[in-house]
């Protein structure tokens, strides 16, 4: 990525679109702290992406393209592991599983889940930590219409709670119901923005608001 500057206000939902290899997922992974930027800086709630990476991770909920689950564990066990790693109470696990419609499969191993069910469980893990910044990489993939509605509800809930979201999409129409504005990336640079709350400027940092 080169010269991409981005600010998210509380409650703002921003879509990132672009062709394959345009840098959408890379941008998301830099903001998530999974990747260290070779240049530029970023902050989440005033925490520096590199220096305060552990603190940043407390605020973010990252849903990658792949669900990232332990296949030999059950749905409940996967969320128990996540709760322990986040240092949060396990009391919300049942509600999270119910919310994503996996109540009947809570004690089944993930290995037997369909792709859509795995995505639902990844969504349950996301809402378990009640993050204030959602980073969603193609969140509508493998979802049926009810699943797509569920993703939109999760995003809207985050907005209502004062949270923000960066949503990577192949097709901007997928998220048109929830997106406040859209940024188009091409080969790692911003090549277009939708009409929105503010235009993007091109400088050499990736920044998120304090």
């Amino acid at each position, binding site marked *: 990525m080169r010269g991409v500057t981005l600010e998210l206000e509380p409650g703002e939902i921003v879509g990132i679109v672009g062709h394959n290899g345009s840098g959408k997922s890379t941008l998301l992974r830099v903001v998530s702290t*999974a990747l260290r930027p070779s240049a530029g800086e970023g902050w989440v709630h005033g925490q520096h992406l590199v220096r305060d990476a552990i603190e940043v*991770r407390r605020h973010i909920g*990252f849903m990658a393209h792949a*669900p990232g689950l*332990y*296949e030999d564990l059950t749905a409940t066990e996967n969320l128990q592991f*996540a709760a322990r*790693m986040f240092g949060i109470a396990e009391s919300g696990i049942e509600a999270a599983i119910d919310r994503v419609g996996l109540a009947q499969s809570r004690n089944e191993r993930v290995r037997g889940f369909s792709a859509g069910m795995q995505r639902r469980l990844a969504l349950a*893990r996301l809402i378990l930590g009640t993050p204030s910044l959602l980073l969603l990489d193609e969140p509508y993939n493998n979802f049926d219409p009810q699943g797509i509605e569920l993703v939109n509800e999760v995003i809207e809930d985050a907005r209502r709670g004062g949270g923000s979201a960066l949503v990577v999409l192949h097709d901007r129409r997928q998220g048109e119901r929830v997106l406040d504005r859209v940024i188009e990336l091409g080969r790692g640079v911003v090549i277009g923005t939708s009409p929105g709350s503010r235009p993007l400027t091109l400088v050499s940092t990736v920044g998120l608001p304090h």
Partner: protein
Amino acid sequence: MTERRSKAGFNAVAFLGVLILLLFGFALGPDTEALRNAAAGALWLAILFAGVLAFNRSYQLELDGAALEPLLLYPAPRWTIFAGKFLANLLFVLLLEVVVVPVAIILFQVTSVAGWIPASGVMLLGSIGFVALGTFYASMASRSRAREVLLPLLLFPMLIPVLLASSEATSALLAGNPMQDAGAWVKLLVAFDVIFLVASFLAFDHVIEV
């Protein structure tokens, strides 16, 4: 939990360890003296060869479900992931030793009970160094498609001091030599363990980045 549930990994590794000892036994022939002299070296080679399979599996659970990235994004220092993998692998290797040592005692006719007691301390020290390096290199090789080949190529040259010190110290103790014969090798093992444990903990953050 998944390892305990499947058990297939440990059974295969333990079987390989026993098989290697049997092959050494056949290769050395029925000469009791030759068998006793080779016991420590054969035992350590069996542990090293079988243990490498365990290290290759140590990131397999995350790789199967693309769960490495979520693991890295939990709000905890990354050295804690290395600590968890190290302790799990150490337990795995110690359990392997519980299986292969009795086989070595019977096969190589090393019946000195007095020698095996201090030798178990040497085995613990040797295992710590072996597992520290193995876990570290497994994290480096985990993203490579050729990791099954890459890991032994990276690991075995680095393990020569551990193999030498462990087998010499074990051999001296089993032969009933006074501790001063094994003392220098034990000091080397302790130094190796400290250096590579500290280095692995410090460097893990940089090699595991997705």
